[in-house]
């Protein structure tokens, strides 16, 4: 049963499903990275992966070439992606500052040691 959708993907021309699949893989990689890395910088990289997976989804869903929608310019997704990139840049700046401070306090950037807010 499982082989059917994959077979379709491999045989069909490139469409939304392909992009979404790549995005999903990126998302999962990012999530796993976040979940498994103890290094804070690794976690940040994971976040970037998740964001880029999401970006890919936006672009795919918005594109006129991928959706057979002749009436739109297909730039909606691009626009969303630009917003997310800007957001990611801002987030990275704040996160790196937090990481730096954390390092100053703990001589380490091991996120497992950052559990002072536990209940």
């Amino acid at each position, binding site marked *: 049963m499982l082989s059917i959708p994959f077979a379709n993907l491999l045989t069909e021309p490139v469409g939304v499903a392909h992009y979404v699949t790549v995005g999903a893989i990126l998302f999962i990689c990012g*999530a796993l990275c*976040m*979940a*498994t*890395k*103890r290094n804070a910088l690794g*976690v940040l990289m*994971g976040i970037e992966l998740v964001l880029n997976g999401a970006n890919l989804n936006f672009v795919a869903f918005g594109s006129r070439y991928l959706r057979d929608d002749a009436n739109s310019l297909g730039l909606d997704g691009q626009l969303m992606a630009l917003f997310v990139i800007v957001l990611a840049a801002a987030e990275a700046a704040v996160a790196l500052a937090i990481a730096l401070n954390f390092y100053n306090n703990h001589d380490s950037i091991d*996120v*497992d040691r*950052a*559990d*002072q*807010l*536990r*209940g």
Partner: protein
Amino acid sequence: MDPASTLPILLMAAWLVPLASFVLIVLFGKYMGPHGKGAGYLSVLAIITSAIFSLIAMFGVWLPNHELPTSGHGDHNGAVSSATEESHAPTEHAAEHHETEHEYPNYSGDWYSLGEFGDLKITIGYYIDALTVAMFCMVSVIASCVHIYALGYMHDELHEPYIDHEVTLSSGEHLHRKGRFYRFFQYLSLFCFSMFGIVIAGNVAMVFVFWELVGICSYFLIGFYIERHSASAAANKAFLVTRVGDFGMLIGMMALWASVGTFAFGDMKNEQGEVTEKGLFSLLRPEEHHHHLAPPPGMIAEEERMFAGDPDGESVPAAVEEEHNTAGQWLLLIAGVGIFCGCVGKSAQFPLHVWLPDAMEGPTPVSALVHSATMVAAGVYLVGRFYPCFSPEALLVIAYVGCITLFIAATIAITATDIKRVLAYSTVSQLGYMMLSLGLGGWVAGMFHLITHAFFKGLLFLCSGSVIHAVHTNDMTYMGGLRKKMPITAYTMLIGCLAIIGAGFPLSVYGLSGYYSKDAIIEQAWSFASVNPQHAILKWAPVGGAFITAFYMFRLWYLTFAGKPRDEHRYDHAHESPRVMTGPLLVLAFFAIGIGWPIFHVNDLLEQGRPVGTLASTQGELLTNLTIPSEHDSHVPIIKQPAGIAAFSTALAGLLLASIIYLWRLLNPDELKESFKPLWGFLSNKWFFDELYDYVFVKPTLVVSHCAAWFDRNIIDSILHTAAAICRACSAVVDALFDQTVVDGTVNTFASGTWSLGLWLRRIQTGNLRQYVMFIVIGTVALFVTISIVQAYYIPTN
């Protein structure tokens, strides 16, 4: 100048200036100069302004516009300018019986309407006639003198702290308190404002309002030394006793209102001069009856309703029809006597005279003001103002009350040793004279005596204040010989004494002011007795009173100023008062000598103010053999000569007796006291009136209130306490059974549930970042799975 428009404005200004001064002193009195000294000057300025306005109203507006009647009364066409002093002398003229009465002008109107309740209108209005203007001048001039005098007399209050030597605290020290100089003048200003309000008032309701204001002012001022027990008791006594009279006045007002339906004195006119609403005077003395007093139809109907006991008034019994000429007279009598009750309280007439002597606890300037221009004058003034509404029977009541008062008060004054108390009883006695005169039909005589008495009694009180200021005691037994130390006070007081006993050359026109007014009263009494022989006592009482007056006034003067000093220490420290105090004495002495002189036309001015219709002699309706004679009948020589001689000889006899006992010491006063001991004790205890009232009213009231207090404390309180205990027990049971178990249990369970839930939830918060990411992922996946399942199974596809 048009008097109808200028008089109300001038008198309103004179009336309101003291109010402005009062308000300013209330608000800023403390900050006016050191210890509020400026407040005194402000108050003096205000009352002098009032006096100037009043005098402008008199000499600038009233006199130029209203030609004075000549004393001859008969020849009304005689020009005033041709009348010499001689022709003013009452002796020269025979009275004419059926002369035509002139209707002298009066101006009435409303300034402001306080409210209308059905037909009842309560307004601030004015009724101005010659009497109003004359009273305004008299009150403002005397009050000005008293205010200026008080600047000197109350000087002690400027010291900080003021030491009251008559109050000893429990620690044995004298009371130290702040000076209350400004407070004193604040009340004086309010007092003058209230008195002016009574004088200018245009309706009975407004009179009542200011009547009560005068009462409260006298309360404040009599109780000025509130820390002295005697002063606060006297203030209470004055307030309560006058309230008894005011109750009667309320009854009179109700009787009037219910039957006549208006409170206004005069007619309300519109701009064209047409009468829009009739006032009391024209309703009770309608023009078509030639201004004879006749109960209006409303009053007759009301009385028939009352006596027939038939609220619908459908069937009038035949008996009422028969005595139709007395219909309404009883109600008229009730209204008149009711209003007079208020005057009895205010003017300290028997049986409510007990408060006035106690009112001596106030500072002496207050006594002077209360006894001359304000307060007690208000009662006599109201009788005079309300005069057209008194039926002959009511007038007889007034006459008898006045007669009893003048005699009782005069006898008490013989034994009093407190200088101010002698004067107080003399005031009561003189007020009795005024009431007697009014009651006998002598309207002008009574009002004339009110004005002359105001001047010489104000003078006498200010003199006594000057003496007290010098020797620091009220008791005449510590005085004596002060003539040499304080000549101005002594001789001005001598003038006052001569004026009050009515000194003058008998049967001539020369004398002090009291001579004219007192002789006029005695003539009126004799004239009354000549037509009503059954009331002969009213003839002899004023003559006897004149004897006693002369005796006690000169006893006072001899004890104070003549002879040898009886207290050397006080004598040595005595000194003449400062000029701020002697100045007013000299001014008042001038008036005490001259205000009655025919050249000043006070008599003629008052003749102008005589209420229309009251000159004609009237017959009683209920007491048919009662005749109130016309006042002009008293000027016939057959009455005037014996009355004048009797008045003069009795006064002279009194003076001689006083000189024999107290000046020449031919009779020893102590031996006399010993030989007349029972009488002396009776008089010095003031006829036991205070004791009588104490036993009849105060003691029973106290017994009743003790019973009520016992009932309150034992019965009502125990009921309340039991109820409270029961209530507490019930709530304790409810508390134990319901509150502590059910309510508390619910709340506590809920709280502990929330607490344990929180404890459990806290375990999720591990602080582990990777775990959180796990949750996010699992959550996201779970969300998608849920949405997929819902979409697949629960949302129908088209």
